[in-house]
C-alpha cells in the first residue's frame, strides 16, 4: 500500500466520519450535508480502488492519477460554496422580510397603545 493511498483513504474517511458525527449530533442539517456526504463517498471510493482511479484518470487525460482526487475535491468544493451562496441569498431575503414585518408590527402595536391610552 503506497503512502498516497493511505493519506487519501484517511483523509476522505475522516471527512465522512466528521460529517456523519455532525449530522448525528444535530449540528448539521441533512439538506446541507448531502453534498459533503457525496464528496466523502466519491473520494473514498476513488482512494480505495487504485484501478478505478487510474481508469478515470486515463479517461480524462490526467497524467498522474492521484491528482484526479484534487480535481474531484475541487469540483465538490465549488458546488458546495455555490450552494451556500444560493442558500445565503434565500436567507437574506427572508431576513429582510422578517425585519420589515417586525418594524410594521412594532408600529401597529404603538398605534394600538396610543389609542388605548386615549380612551
Amino acid at each position, binding site marked *: 500500500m503506497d503512502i498516497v493511498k493511505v493519506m487519501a483513504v484517511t483523509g476522505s474517511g475522516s471527512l465522512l466520519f466528521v460529517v456523519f458525527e455532525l449530522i448525528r449530533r444535530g449540528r448539521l442539517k441533512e439538506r446541507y450535508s448531502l453534498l459533503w456526504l457525496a464528496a466523502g463517498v466519491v473520494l473514498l471510493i476513488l482512494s480505495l480502488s487504485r484501478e478505478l482511479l487510474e481508469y478515470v484518470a486515463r479517461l480524462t487525460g490526467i497524467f498522474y492519477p492521484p491528482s484526479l482526487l484534487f480535481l474531484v475535491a475541487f469540483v465538490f468544493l465549488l458546488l458546495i460554496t455555490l450552494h451556500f451562496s444560493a442558500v445565503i441569498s434565500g436567507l437574506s431575503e427572508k431576513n*429582510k422580510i422578517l*425585519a*420589515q414585518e417586525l*418594524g410594521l408590527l*412594532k408600529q401597529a402595536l404603538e398605534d394600538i397603545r396610543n389609542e388605548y391610552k386615549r380612551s
Partner: protein
Amino acid sequence: MRKILIIIPAYNEEKCLTGVIEDLRSHYPAGDILVVDDGSNDGTASVARGAGARCISLPFNLGIGGAVQTGYRYAVAHEYDIAVQFDGDGQHVAADIEKLLIPLEQGLADIVVGSRFLTAGEYRPSFFRKIGISIFSRVLSSIIDIPMTDTTSGFRAANRRTIQFFSAVYPDDYPEVESLVQLHRASMRIQEVSVRMRDRSEGKSSITPVRSVYYMVKVLLAVIIDLMKKR
C-alpha cells in the same frame, strides 16, 4: 377622499428630519408622513415622532431598498391610494408633490418620477456624476422607450398598482433605476415631471468613488438580468 402616504426612508438623519417634516406639514398637509428609520444609531426615530410623523424602526440596517419597501408594505396594509417617496435629507421640495400627483390622478401613469434635469435648474453635477447620469438615462430610456432624464431620483409617486407591485418586489440597494425597469416589464406606465431640488442641507452623498463603480456595475448587471428573467 384618497389617502396619501409620504414615505421617508431615513438613516441617521436626525439633523435634517425636523426641517423635512415641517416642510411637508406646512406645504403638503394632505399626506400622512411615515418615516422608516433604517436601523439608525442616532435619534432619527425620536426626532421623527417628536416632529409629529409616524415612524417605523427597523431592527437593523436593511439599506435604502428594504427601508422604502417597508413603507410600501405599510401603504398596502393601511390601504393608501398613493404613496410618495421623499428623501429625508432635505433635497426634495414638499410643495412639488402636487405636481407629481397630477399624472396619477389623470390616470396617465402608474409611477411619476420627479426629475431635476427636465428643465434647467441650479443643480450642477460633478463630471463623473454627469457621465453616470447620462449612461443610466440612455440605458433606461432605450429599455422603456420614453426619455428619462433623472433615473436615480428618489422623489417618486406611486398609485395603488405600483404600491402593490413594490410591496412584493423591490431591489435592495441602489434600487431606483432597477425598479423602473421591473415596473416597465410589468407593463406599468412611467412618467417624469420636472421638480426643483435643493442642495442637501446636512451630510454628504453616500456615493464615494469606489461605491460609484459598484453602483454602475450593480445597476447595469441587475438591469440586464431583469431583462432576461422570465415574466
